[in-house]
């Protein structure tokens, strides 16, 4: 079924209709943790996107070789290998980002977006479609992270794109005239609300943005975002047991009719 969809659709569905963060509610941990500044969010998003595209391609290539009983461990090995590669690249070329993301960089391994896409898409579809799907989901993840980080950084620190040189160092020293982010003009008179870059602000921003996403979805007649786009999650069965079949089954029905 999915094979027949055009590649364009495969790409754009990850951006809005099936946005991994706001619609499928996958990968919540990094979403909350690294969105203290736009630069960190961008770095995290791009790292995850690279892992997602590469692992989708490899898993799709191997989809006929991997026996279905051991597919989850096999997927994890593929994903972990790419995460290690990305980790080493980031450490070598963008050390400030490595320091800022800390433990969340290796934790891309257990990011449910990546395992979820492997299970729901790459394990069943052709290589090109899987790569495009990974790219779309990766861009959707990055955009969602940046959106959330913009809100938090502007309100919480009174800056935008602060520390841009941490990423731009990839292209050489002092590119773009040593551009290192804006300080917003009103911070002279108003103290930024630091709580927004602390833990509670993360939960609050995420909750409010998800409410907006739900409102928009409702206008278009789409279902509300539920926890863990269950059709994508390899653990759906256990989860369904836990939630007594309620949330997960509803989600699945909606997924099937859509």
């Amino acid at each position: 079924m999915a094979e027949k969809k055009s590649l364009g659709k495969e790409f754009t569905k990850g951006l809005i209709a099936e946005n991994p963060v706001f619609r499928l509610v996958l990968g919540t941990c990094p979403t909350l943790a690294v969105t203290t500044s736009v630069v960190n969010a961008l770095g995290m998003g791009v790292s995850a996107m690279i892992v997602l595209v590469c692992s989708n391609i490899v898993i799709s290539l191997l989809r006929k070789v991997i026996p279905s009983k051991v597919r989850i461990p096999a997927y994890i090995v593929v994903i972990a290998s790419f995460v290690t590669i990305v980790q080493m690249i980031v450490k070598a070329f963008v050390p400030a980002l490595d320091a800022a993301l800390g433990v969340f960089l290796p934790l891309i391994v257990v990011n449910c977006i990546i395992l979820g896409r492997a299970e729901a898409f790459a394990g069943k579809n052709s290589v090109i479609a899987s790569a495009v799907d990974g790219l779309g989901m990766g861009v959707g993840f990055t955009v969602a992270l940046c959106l959330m980080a913009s809100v938090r950084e502007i309100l919480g620190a009174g800056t935008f794109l602060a520390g841009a040189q941490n990423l731009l160092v990839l292209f050489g020293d002092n590119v773009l005239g040593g551009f290192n982010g804006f300080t917003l003009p009103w911070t002279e008179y108003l103290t930024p609300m630091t709580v927004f870059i602390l833990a509670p602000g993360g939960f609050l921003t995420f909750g409010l943005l998800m409410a907006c996403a739900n409102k928009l979805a409702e206008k278009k007649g789409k279902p509300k975002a539920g926890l863990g786009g269950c059709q994508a999650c390899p653990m759906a069965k256990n989860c369904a047991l836990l939630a007594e079949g309620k949330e997960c089954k509803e989600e699945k029905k909606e997924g099937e009719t859509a």
Partner: protein
Amino acid sequence: MKIALSILLTAILTENFVLCKFLGICPFLGVSKKLNTAVGMSGAVIFVMALATAVTYPINKYLLVANGLDYLQTIVFILVIAALVQLVELILKKFMPPLYEALGIYLPLITTNCAVLGVVLLNITKEFNFVQSMLNSVGAGIGFMLAMVIFSGVRSRLEGADIPKFLQGLPIVLIAASIVSLSFMGFTGLVDGIFG
């Protein structure tokens, strides 16, 4: 002793895994609806965290670091944790049926729980020795349980509340989590205050 207590308190309160470090958010949001599932899940998390630390610490020290292979940490740890969870499931099923009944269904969920891999990696970043690592892991697990139990109470209140339509479901849960997290910010500086 002082150090041990400060590691434990830091892991439970000031650097609570869920509410301050954002690790293990998925089970925190997904399984906190009822008190008994919240306790069962956190019990399994404490168990697996302690076990994973006990197993990965020697692997890291004597196999990876000793041979200059520390760049393989991520891949080795996730595989060890996945295998360990499977093994624990089998052993419990065979030898401790009551415990299996209690924790069994939660175990597969934990394999891909970032809190377990997270605590193992953090122990290395913080350069803890074996005892300190174990304390930190158990503390992190207890902190997870504390957050889950408190939050399941909050959520049972939410069920009966009259919530605006667009906030129903996950948004209000996240906002409630934000307020619980705010209360945990009150512990900032507590450990330094007692032991500093």
